[in-house]
């Protein structure tokens, strides 16, 4: 019985408990809070794997920024009563079932492969530990991101920039001149 096992137990119970509670909580804010709990538990899981950088980013980005924005929107829109049970997308449930099954099979495959690798004596943790010692977790990630995985990294960043620009175009307030010219164009269309 060492500390890591205890921590793993705490993480496991927290992640699973929060996820299940999230599904059954009727209040939108409570759902968001349970999701935060799940994110923190996942960060703990990364920490146990020695992935310090990913753990910190998990908390800063997901628990600290994205979920706060979720709460912000929920508070601002006042969806704090029971959420509506009308499904706007038809066939949502069937699709969710199929996709969930695909995900479950994928996860199972990864787990089985990991177990067989470990049984075969391939020690992935030793390599990981070595990488984390020299040159260190952050440096190792930086090296991988900016050399081997440079293209996916840059493509992802372009995707994010495109999303940001799109939001700005959609959400910006029109200036008086622009509103005026658009109204005139609409009137011309009506007249024609």
């Amino acid at each position, binding site marked *: 019985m060492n*500390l890591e096992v205890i921590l793993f137990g705490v993480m496991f119970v927290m992640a699973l408990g929060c996820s299940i509670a999230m599904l059954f909580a009727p*209040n939108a*804010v*409570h759902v968001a*809070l349970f999701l*935060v709990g799940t994110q923190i538990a996942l960060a703990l899981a990364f920490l146990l794997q020695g992935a*310090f*950088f990913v*753990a*910190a*980013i998990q*908390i*800063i980005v997901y*628990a*600290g*920024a994205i979920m*706060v*924005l979720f*709460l*912000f929107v929920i*508070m*601002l829109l006042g969806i*704090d009563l029971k959420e509506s049970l009308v499904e706007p997308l038809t066939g949502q449930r069937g699709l969710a079932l199929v996709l969930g099954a695909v995900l479950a099979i994928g996860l199972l495959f990864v787990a089985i492969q990991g177990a067989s690798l470990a049984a075969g004596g391939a020690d992935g943790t030793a390599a990981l530990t070595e990488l984390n010692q020299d040159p*260190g*977790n*952050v440096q190792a990630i930086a090296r991988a991101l900016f050399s081997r995985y440079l293209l996916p990294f840059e493509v992802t960043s372009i995707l994010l920039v495109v999303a940001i620009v799109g939001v700005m175009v959609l959400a910006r307030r029109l200036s008086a001149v622009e509103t005026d010219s658009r109204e005139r164009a609409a009137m011309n269309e009506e007249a024609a």
Partner: protein
Amino acid sequence: MIGNIIDWIGAPVIVAAVKVVVVFLVLLVVTMLVIWFERRVLAFMQSRLGPNRHGPFGLAQTLADGIKLFFKEDFRPKNADRWAYALAPVAAMVPSFLAFAVIPIGDHVTIGDRRVDFILSDLNIGLLYFLAMGSLGVYGIVLAGWASGSKYPLLGGIRSTAQLISYEIALGLSLVPIVLVAGSLSTQDIVAAQAGSIGDVTVFDGIPVLEQVSSIFRFVPNWYIWSQWPAFLIFLIAGIAETNRAPFDLPEAETELVAGFHTEYSGIRFAMFFLGEYIHVVAISAMAVTLFFGGWHGPQFGIPWIMPLVWFTLKVLFFVYLFVWVRATLPRLRYDRLMWLGWKRLIPAALVWIMVTAVVNTEGISQSVRLGVFGLLFLAVLVWMGRGDPRLALIVPTKQRGREVPSGTS
């Protein structure tokens, strides 16, 4: 028997546990003293006396207040969300305490054959951990605002969410130049990089006049503040905003929002918010000292491990004083000015400074000199940006505006 137990748990775990308890207790006492200090200094600045009745110099006043709060009735508004209302004070307090885990408060001491550092945990992602705890601290305020089931707390909560998220970005970006210069996210490495004095630079060795000139500066410590002062300014402003203190105390603006997010809290729950805020102030001060003012470095004499602690405490005390001073001096910002400062000034300034630091540090020589030059350039850019803002013209009325006022009305 005891030896067996120690072996079973493991000595590092015991050392860590003792450190946690010590840091926790010290922080509680420090909070008490800081609250007393703030009230006394504020009173002094406003020509009052401040609390001076309980204990010597009124030192026990906070203790008395704490006992009073502890025994006060703990009520909950009718519309409050039960669980979130109870969770909010804890969520506000715990991250502030946790942030202290990565702050090196002194050198190390050797007990037996074991080296014990005066830091809870030297994480290799220390700065990121600090930021993560800061970003978790938002939840306390957001939840308190929402869960109280009352409109003033809700307004305060929404305001603070926008404020904290905006200034978190500036705070995070202001740490990047330090990481670039030190080459590490570990706070202990950053403190170690600030050892020695700026007179020790070997760049000027062999050059007749400059060598003597540089040796004059041997008494000046090699702190990052000299080369990284723009980052420090951004860090300080964003840090004050992160702690929700004047002039950034919009979430609890008492003239508009009663007491903002903690309007509906009383007793021990209110005390927890208070505790969290003051610990956060001390944490930001300690981080400023660690990153920009050489951490625990200082002149060494006497017992080798005590002086670092003293230096660190004095430096942190200066920043706590600065916090109080700022509170006593500056009026609260208007909300749109707050957003303007955060998004249009601090974040672009931080991004520019990151690029400047990155460019300058590609070659290792005479960093301080070049950073100083670039700092002046940066200041010029800042002034230029400030002058270009049309809303500044609205605040400082021009002569033309003065003429528009009818002359007969007074």
